[in-house]
């Protein structure tokens, strides 16, 4: 007999009828579970494209809502407890304080530098000329330059130390 014909004889092999009936019944009995799953399946797993579009849509919605909330300025009507004028005034006051602080610093920096230079020992003119006197003169000259630079922005008002010096003379 031909090989092909013998191979075709194997088509007569069948599974046990009892098993077949039981297996069929068990498989088809799982129908209800499958139906419960299939309600959600299209939205969650089976359609990849649908899932992707759902994600994109939600991102766009969030972006739009976020954009509106950023653009719209809150008015006192929507927030009764909010005092916009007060907040603005407070913000401006902070800037002024910073300016005043820097002004005060500049005012106090000048007299201190003068005192430091003044504290240096000064030798009499009739003594032998040395390098120290020349150095002190140089420093005083520099100090005078700093004084004029610092005093300039403050204005024409003289400081307390300057007034005392004038009185002492």
């Amino acid at each position, binding site marked *: 007999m031909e090989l092909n014909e013998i191979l075709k*004889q194997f088509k007569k*092999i069948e*599974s046990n009828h009892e*098993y077949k009936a039981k297996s069929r019944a068990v*498989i088809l009995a799982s*129908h209800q579970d499958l139906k419960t799953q*299939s309600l959600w399946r299209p939205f969650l797993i089976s359609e990849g494209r649908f899932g992707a579009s759902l994600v994109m849509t939600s991102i766009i919605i969030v972006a739009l809502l976020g954009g509106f909330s950023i653009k719209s300025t809150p008015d006192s009507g929507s927030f009764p407890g909010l005092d916009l004028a007060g907040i603005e005034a407070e913000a401006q006051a902070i800037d002024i304080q910073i300016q005043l602080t820097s002004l005060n610093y500049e005012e106090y920096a000048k007299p201190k530098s003068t005192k430091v230079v003044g504290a240096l020992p000064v030798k009499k003119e009739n003594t032998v000329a040395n390098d120290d006197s020349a150095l002190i003169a140089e420093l005083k000259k520099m100090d005078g330059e700093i004084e004029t630079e610092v005093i300039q922005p403050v204005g024409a008002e003289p400081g307390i130390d300057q007034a005392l010096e004038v009185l002492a003379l």
Partner: protein
Amino acid sequence: MRSAISGEASAFGSLYDFYEPKIYRFILFKVSHREEAEDLTHHVFLKAWQSMPNFKERGGVPFSSWLYRIARNQVIDHYRTKRDHADLEQVDREFTPSMAVAHINSIAVDQNLEMEKIWTAVQKLEPEHQDVIVMRFIDELSVRETAKAMEKSEGAVKVLQHRALQKLKNILSEKV
């Protein structure tokens, strides 16, 4: 098919009746054990039934090829698990070809002997050659269906089929 995909049990029942003998034979050739073949066949159809909503003939894969793919994977998983429990299962592996063909009443004794020889020879083939012999010559799948089931080109299946037949003939001639 559409009814089965949409979850109609009676439609899937018809598909089961038509394809169950083919899948059972295919698995029986692979595992050489009746109860195991029945058990695996049951799992194949259960898996197919549960995955029916996902089946859309993607890439032109026919339903039959899809079933064979599930069956092949099921057998691979079966052997993977079996390898871990080899010692325990060894006792149940005493399968003889006559057990597979014993219930074929309409076959004469001499034919039965021929079938036993061929059965034994097929068992000696490589898994891919076994697959192509069973699909093409026993279950009579088309070249296209076989190619889709084996995830190969039609040309590759033709080559594989030729080699498988050649090897089968060689084995049979060696025995004689």
